């Protein structure tokens, strides 16, 4: 009896291992197939992305884009005058200006007086800064003014050369080809 039971037990173990192996084998095969398929798809997708990146680079060539902008839009190149810095943007006015009655306390009055005193002392500086901020700067050399006066009459040639020149004369403008200056 004991032997029968032991034999039965080991037979059961053998059957169990056989079944497990069978199941494991087909599971592994299925998983490997799935894995290979995914890898193939990844490779294919990467190849397609690579080709698309190459095409993207070709279609984004500046020469092609310039032609498209010219034919499809009415955009123009950025002019130097259009570039500003943050400091050029004026401060935003206070939202409650003119809407709310401001009640001044004694501290506010004292602070206001202090600010007024400060502003008087820096007024000159402010004026000079505001002058600088204006687009056209005044000549600040007497010698230059004198030499300007000494040139009493401009020739026609000089007039035609200066015609059309704007404040952006630092940089040669490609718009006005006629009025080229001497080197």
């Amino acid at each position, binding site marked *: *009896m004991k032997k029968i039971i032991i034999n039965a037990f*080991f037979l059961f*173990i*053998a059957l*169990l*291992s056989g079944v*497990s192996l069978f199941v*494991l084998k087909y*599971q592994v095969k299925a*998983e*490997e197939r799935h*894995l*290979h398929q995914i*890898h193939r798809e*990844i*490779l294919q997708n*990467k*190849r397609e992305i*690579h*080709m698309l990146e*190459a*095409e*993207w*680079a*070709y279609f*984004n*060539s*500046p*020469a092609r884009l310039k032609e498209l902008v010219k034919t499809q839009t009415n955009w123009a*190149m*950025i002019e*130097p*005058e259009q*570039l*500003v*810095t943050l400091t050029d943007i004026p401060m935003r006015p206070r939202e409650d200006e003119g809407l709310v009655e401001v009640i001044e306390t004694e501290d506010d009055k004292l602070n206001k007086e202090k600010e007024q005193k400060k502003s008087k002392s820096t007024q000159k500086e402010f004026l000079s800064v505001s002058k*600088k901020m204006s687009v*056209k*700067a005044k000549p600040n*050399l007497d010698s*230059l003014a004198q*030499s*300007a006066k000494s*040139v009493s009459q*401009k020739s026609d040639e*000089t007039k035609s*050369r*200066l015609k059309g*020149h704007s*404040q*952006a*004369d*630092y*940089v*040669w403008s*490609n718009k006005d080809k006629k009025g*080229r*200056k*001497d*080197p």
Partner: protein
Amino acid sequence: MFFKRKKEVFYYVGMEVPQTSMDRYKCLDATTRGVLEKARGRITFVMVVFAVCFLIITARLFQLSVMNYHARQFIPSVLKTDVDFTRYNILDRNGMILATSVPTKDLSVNPKKVKSSERLNVARELAKVLPDVTEKEILEKLNENTNFRYIKRNITPTEQNAINWLGYYFLQETDGEKRVYPQGNLFSHLLGRVDIDNHGTAGLEKAYEKTLLQQNLTLSLDLSVQEIVRKTLSEEVKHFKADGGLGIVMDVNTGEILASVSLPDYNPNLPLDSKDKDKLFNKATLGAYEFGSVFKLFNTAMGLDMGVIKPTDSYDASQAIQIGRKKLTDWRGQNRPLLVPEILIHSSNLGSVRIALKAGYQKQREFLKRFGFYEPLPISLPERTRTQYPRSNKWAEITSANISFGYGISVSPLHLISAVSALVNGGYYRVPTFLKEGNKGQPEYQVISEKTSDIMRHMMWGVINWRIKPKDLGYGYAVGGKTGTANLIQNGKYVEGKSRTTFVAAFPMSDPKYAVLVTLENPKKLKETFNFNTAGWNAKPTGLKIIEQIAPYLGIAPEEPWAQPAYMQRAIDASLQANKRGW
């Protein structure tokens, strides 16, 4: 339960007692009993061992297959997940692709499998499908006594489809790879080329062969800036009917090259012709030229940095200088004493020579050495030139005089723009690099003092802007620079009427960020240039046009008029007074 003791059976008198194996065992003699015992023991031992192993294996199998199914991790086999190209991409500083590899198919044949009676027909059919290969070439390959021969590398998908429709079993298609340059002519000289097996043969493709096999290569070049420079240069070369031109844009603070164009150029996607030899020449790195008056910048900087001259000094430019048999004069000279800034403003040979002779050839030679003018540039490109300069230890006076206004010394355009960058950026020389952040961590060499650099910036500004009225000095880019015109050399002699014109500039001069160099080869005299072909009429307007377009793109905002020191104002006043123009 399994190990329950057997019940003892009670036997009545006369009952038959069944003989058990133990009874039979007891009947045996001692020797036989001993042998049986041994055998039983051995069998039992082996059984136990097998049973234990079997139990272990079964338990593990059960664990793997049933219990840990979801937690199972596969050991991946050798599966490629990366794209199987041998060569990586070359990118510009913003990540745009300049060179890439695309998968293709190579058509090959096994000639031994082709019957001799079929060969002519096969060659004819293939020639119809492959326009680049002739019937004769295909037939030659089919007649060879070999197992493998390429018919055409990198066939297009259309050709591949047509070949498949032919249905010849002896034709094979193997995976190939083709190097493609999406930007066409734009970077042809810099990127270089690869051979049929995708090994670099020129340019950056050759210089970074090993890097490109492992990773992408990011350059310092900017696609948009390169396009602007090339387009403007092409238009102006055509306008001035020049033989060629070049344009370089460089970051003065890092040494990075943003653009480098050499015209004429070629399309690296197309096969080369024997007539394309000139187009392959990269003027920016391979050419060594005399730049003429541009070298007056270095002559003046030498005088200032070595304490030989001051910005307020004055030198006579009215009398010609006789050195040996040679008489040196100015072209359209001022014929008066000139202040040091005026020597640059009016590009006076006489003033420059006097400065050079005052300094002496030793100081001059040592100063030029600081800018690396005597050695090839330590750049990665294989195409780089040796400079030409007087090799003797002692320079004659005439040599020193010639070099002061840019003759007698030939350097590459890249040498020149690197040196000018050092003049304007506070005096620090940085080796030019084509790689993004290529100079990071590299040492910088101070070649002139910051004070000298400051003076040079003001003087260069004066060269460009001395004629503009102060009230017209509004918001703009403070550009400073210098022009230079040098006669071309043919058969060892200077040719009158043919010149190479150069304009080198930096902006914004108040705090320089970028330097620009433009050179035109043999620009013609035009009616609109009043029959002049000097640099001020062609190279300078070209350079200013380029600056006007790239400055907004590079985020350089216009600024207020740049205040000039007293010595500059004095020099400008004197020039205006003497010339009485523009006012």
